[in-house]
């Protein structure tokens, strides 16, 4: 037997050394540790949580050679700053928050090495709502019910089940790949004053009066200030007729649009409850949910009715983008650079 092979995992260099950390220097409320989400626990009432823009999260991890669903920091309140207490690598994706490493500007959707002591600062983005800061090895908080995502309402997962605060020291896992400076092209997403997301009719769609259905699909909705990771409360025409039928609570998923009494729809987002008892008029398709995750409070959104086949094609396009990013990064990692 090799001497030292009995050393517990926590003692192996690089696995869980306490100084492999990032320190939160500046944080307002509502920035949390999130991974790709928590699945499999809906039968006991646990919703998914996870990144609001899972595409950005996955690309950040790809740039570092992490598992694509590894935990990162989701930043939705700016400014935000961290100090690296160890030499490591980081990636920043999602909304362009003009990252600066020790004052030196970096491109968006970018990975770079950081030395111990360096400070990364993020500023309020001009477009988009959420940036993702990933580190090589991932944010190594304990997985709870199979995920490192923060479940704020039940206060578990993430960093002690809460939003990040000044002075928090987040552990970093062992890096799987050496640090590289590399960027990724952000997915091509529509720009314009009104975001259009595709949706499919949901369970109670046809039970709404025709006028309410027409209003839902044609209106320009505003994302109100009462919107968060749980759900986006929309303002626009009142969708009457939904309070005539009080349905039993059914399981729901992020993307489902419920219409409570009062007629103002709520789009369920990442922190949605596992079940809901309001009529469901539509479901935003998986391919377009990340677009909504990047929509800002006060911005406008429209729902375009699509069909199952078109929705599948849109999701295939997202998967193809991610696969292509992963493949090209793989070439760079294997060869240093192609050529």
């Amino acid at each position, binding site marked *: 037997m090799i001497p030292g092979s009995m050393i517990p995992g926590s003692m192996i260099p690089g696995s869980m050394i306490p100084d492999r950390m990032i320190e939160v220097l500046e944080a307002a409320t509502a920035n949390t540790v999130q991974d790709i989400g928590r*699945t*499999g*626990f*809906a*039968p*006991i*009432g*646990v*919703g998914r949580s996870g990144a609001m823009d899972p595409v950005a999260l996955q690309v950040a991890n790809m740039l570092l050679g992490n598992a694509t669903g590894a935990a990162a920091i989701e930043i939705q309140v700016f400014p935000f700053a961290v100090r690296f207490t160890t030499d490591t690598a980081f990636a920043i994706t999602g909304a362009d928050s003009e990252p600066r490493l020790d004052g030196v500007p970096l491109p968006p959707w970018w990975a770079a090495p950081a030395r111990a002591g360096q400070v990364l600062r993020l500023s309020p983005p001009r477009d988009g709502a959420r940036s993702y800061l990933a580190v090589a090895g991932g944010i190594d908080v304990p997985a*709870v*019910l199979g995920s490192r995502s923060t*479940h704020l*309402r*039940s*206060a*578990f*997962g993430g960093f002690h089940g809460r939003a990040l605060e000044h002075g928090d020291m987040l552990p970093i896992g062992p890096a799987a790949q050496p640090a590289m400076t590399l960027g990724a092209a952000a997915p091509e997403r529509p720009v314009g004053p009104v975001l259009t997301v595709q*949706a*499919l*009719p*949901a*369970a109670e*769609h046809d039970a709404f009066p025709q006028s309410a259905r027409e209003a839902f699909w044609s209106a320009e909705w505003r994302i109100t200030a009462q919107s968060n990771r749980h759900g986006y409360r929309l303002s626009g025409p009142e969708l009457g007729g939904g309070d005539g*039928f*009080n*349905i*039993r*609570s*059914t*399981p*729901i*998923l992020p*993307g*489902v649009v419920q219409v409570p009494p009062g007629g103002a729809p709520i789009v369920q987002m990442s922190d949605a*409850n*596992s*079940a*809901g008892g309001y009529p*469901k008029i539509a*479901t*935003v*398709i*998986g391919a377009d949910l990340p677009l909504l995750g990047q929509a800002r409070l006060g911005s406008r959104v429209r729902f375009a009715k699509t069909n*199952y086949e078109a*929705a*599948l094609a849109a*999701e295939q396009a997202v998967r193809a983008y991610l696969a292509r990013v992963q493949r090209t990064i793989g070439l760079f990692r294997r060869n240093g650079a192609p050529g």
Partner: protein
Amino acid sequence: MTDLAAPRISLVGTAGLLFQAPGAFALPVQARIWHMADTASRWPGVAEAVPGVTSLMLVFATPPASPEPMTQKLLAAWDDSGDAPVPEGRLVEIPVSYGGPHGPDLAGVAAHTGFDVAEVVRRHGAAEYRVFALGSQPGFAYLGGLDPGIGVPRKAVPVLRVEAGTVVIGGMQAGVVAAAGPNGWHAIGHSESKLFDPVRSSPTLFLPGDRVRFRKIALEA
């Protein structure tokens, strides 16, 4: 609440299918849902089978080219579930301190029902409830079996914060709040039982199918 005349199956985007059973909010219907969930969880292409209150959501492992075959399988599974036995279920007892600061709506429920407070408490504690499904919050159970005499419609305006452990009544359902937050049900008491602990080997106190009894340990007017 209108009962469906026939099963309703709808898309949850491309993520899955929602099956809503016809018939009443009743245990034999729910037993069929549990039976279907058990069966469907083993179907190829199904990542999760999530039972709701007289409903079942199947989450696709990968969205199929067409949802039609699985829709047909669900309908067949419903037809096959007609004689699904009602499971015995574990008995879970919840000690309750009725009234007081954590049960501020007890007097209001009594006024609404026409019973005195003691009778509301007696009826609440006399019934045996069933966990139909868990949902909404981690560990929150939709309990069927409330004495119809003490059913009260949910509040028009939810209370902003109701603490975990609060014993509540809403419509014809009973429950125990699992995580503090806004709540539109009527708070009639409080329990020290911990309904959800994510690092416990069984994270939730309740599981679908459990039988539940409330035991009075105190009554504060």
